[in-house]
């Protein structure tokens, strides 16, 4: 296993004019599509897939992979600038990223997102290169019980995202879980709350919900008052992160990358989970957790790195086992098969040029992304300078078209508007959006896996504790749930101690 020779092989494959061009094209298309709210990597890849048939498989995969993480990066741009996440994983970036933009620090936010993503992407590609096969086994060890416990832990983590009232954040989370039940139940086939609308059979679409809660609601809230908008852009000073920013972001980026990579191996909505887990971790170990949600750079650096690293991690099950980790990778898998490449454990040994060529293209792609996006930061900031009376109809337009073009469904557009109303009112009443959205993502998976696990064990709940990985997550969840109370215990002891000392003196 001579890694250097593999790397050279990959480089040889990659550095041909054709493949470099395809890498660039993929990254460009991906970023463009990612920036447009509503259109995600799935749409981009589906659009460009036909064009790949005329080229050889390696070039095709290189381009498609480029689209994937280009789109992931593009999604953060809109999150920071206008508080509209490009896809679910970017929801977390909105929390602090947008606040930074409001304070005139959009440049550093975008910059650290770019650099963080680059570093994370590089780390995850390194990981992919070095440890792909053993890690694949790790992914297989996750079955329904493990997934349920992981999701449960995810829900508990959601609490930590709350910057305001925890009770209200929890209420939104439970509401999200309930909304997640709408649709056809996978296990029994029963229609739940679909009211005869076939579009709802797959549940409430995530994109209409996000666009409504974040996009529409945000715009409508802004429309209430005149002026004010210009003030924000006038204060934009630096376009890049300064030294302090780097110092603050360094460890979050490293932590986020490693975390994201490992979570990314697991099939499922890995970028989402890694992004908010990273946020929760950064908040927990930060010296100033109360500042999270007001625009701290760690809140952008960590999650952005995590979701990019998860993107790299998602390739592992694809290359080693032929299993798609999410719907985007599923398309890539289909592309393999259409090009006559048989996916499975033998893929790396049978098609080394494909594997190593793609890996090298990821390095190159990450560099291209950085080079492409940094100069664009100046451009994006200028976009913000467009007077709001003219800008906001365009934002709304993007939301409308983005949602409609997903499934050409007016039902989903109506859903978005409905969520817009709800989001608008929720802001008024001081409820937070993020727990709701994340619960809608996690809820169905959690419920499904709970019932699957119980079906397999025929009703025996001990399966969750008997399986080691699952037990681990459950323990962590309990610890997280109880830990807010531990400092209180600690404080009491300290007070007692002080009292005693005071008396002694």
């Amino acid at each position, binding site marked *: 296993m001579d890694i250097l020779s593999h790397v050279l092989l990959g480089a040889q494959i990659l550095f041909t004019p054709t493949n470099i061009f395809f890498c660039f094209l993929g990254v460009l298309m991906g970023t463009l599509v990612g920036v447009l709210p509503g259109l995600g990597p799935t749409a981009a890849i589906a659009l460009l897939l036909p064009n790949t048939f005329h080229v050889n498989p390696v070039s095709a995969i290189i381009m498609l992979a480029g689209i994937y993480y280009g789109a992931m990066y593009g999604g953060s741009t809109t999150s920071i600038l206008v508080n509209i996440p490009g896809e679910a994983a970017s929801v977390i970036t909105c929390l602090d990223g947008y606040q930074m933009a409001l304070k005139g620090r959009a440049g550093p936010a975008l910059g650290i997102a770019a650099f963080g993503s680059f570093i994370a992407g590089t780390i995850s590609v390194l990981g992919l290169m070095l440890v792909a096969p053993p890690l694949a086994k790790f992914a297989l060890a996750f079955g329904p019980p493990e997934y349920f416990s992981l999701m449960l832990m995810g829900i508990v983590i959601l609490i930590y995202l709350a910057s305001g009232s925890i009770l209200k954040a929890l209420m939104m989370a439970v509401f999200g879980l309930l909304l997640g039940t709408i649709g056809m139940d996978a296990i029994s086939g029963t229609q739940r709350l679909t009211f005869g609308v076939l579009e709802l059979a797959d549940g409430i679409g995530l994109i209409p919900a996000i666009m409504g809660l974040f996009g529409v609601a945000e715009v409508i809230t802004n429309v209430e008052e005149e002026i004010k908008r210009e003030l924000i852009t006038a204060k934009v000073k630096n376009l890049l992160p300064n030294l302090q920013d780097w110092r603050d972001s360094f460890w979050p980026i490293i932590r986020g990358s490693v975390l994201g990579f490992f979570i990314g191996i697991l099939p499922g909505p890995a970028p989402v989970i890694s992004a908010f887990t990273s946020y929760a971790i950064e908040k927990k170990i930060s010296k100033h957790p109360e500042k999270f949600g007001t625009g701290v750079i760690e809140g952008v650096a960590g999650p952005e790195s995590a979701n990019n690293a998860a993107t790299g991690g998602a390739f592992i099950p694809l290359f080693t086992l032929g299993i798609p980790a999410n719907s985007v990778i599923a398309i890539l898998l289909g592309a393999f098969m259409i090009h006559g490449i048989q996916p499975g454990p033998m893929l790396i040994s049978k098609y080394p040029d494909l594997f190593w060529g793609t890996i090298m293209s990821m390095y190159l792609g990450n560099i291209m992304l950085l080079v492409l996006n940094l100069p664009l930061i100046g451009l994006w900031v200028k976009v913000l300078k467009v007077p709001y009376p003219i800008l906001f109809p365009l934002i709304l*337009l993007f939301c409308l078209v983005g949602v409609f073009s997903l499934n050409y469904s007016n039902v989903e557009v109506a859903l978005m*508007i409905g969520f817009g109303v709800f989001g608008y009112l929720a802001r008024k009443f001081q409820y937070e959006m993020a727990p709701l959205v994340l619960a809608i993502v996690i809820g169905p998976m959690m419920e499904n896996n709970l019932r699957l696990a119980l079906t397999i064990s025929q009703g025996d709940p001990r399966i969750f504790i008997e399986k080691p990985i699952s037990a681990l997550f459950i323990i962590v969840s309990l610890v997280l749930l109880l830990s807010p109370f531990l400092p209180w215990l600690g404080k009491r002891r300290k007070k007692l101690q002080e009292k005693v000392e005071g008396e002694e003196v």
Partner: protein
Amino acid sequence: MDKAIRYNRISAVFFLGVGVFFFLYARSVEIGTWNEPGPGFLPFWGGVVLTAMSVALLLMTFWGKLPPMTRSFFPQSDSWKRVLATFLALIAYNIFLNPLGFTLITFLFVAFLVRFIFPQTWTRTLVVAVLSSVAARLLFVNFLETQLPKGFLGF
């Protein structure tokens, strides 16, 4: 009445209603047992939990301390007009997208919002509306090949 108290009460009642709705609904689909949850399991327990939390919030408005809310519901007296107009514009877009076709409805939508929410001059309005509908058309239909509706006028 203190604003914070009033708003939290209203929202608590809303979520109370939602919670009750779900656990009542859950009874019409199978709830199942703890060992064998049915399709109604999560709606039922989720509804119960939400109801309990709403009650807790409601009680807090009577007894506990809540963070104060300073903003009034509508910051400016005519805010509600703009909010309502924008929502209606969105709904109208959805309804008329298919009959009128993408390019036309986009033009009308942008023009309406630019002109009537934060009024700009007619020149500005027309320029922005035309540019955006044409650019959007080129981007989405021609470049990205999304199938957006053509209205009765055929474009």
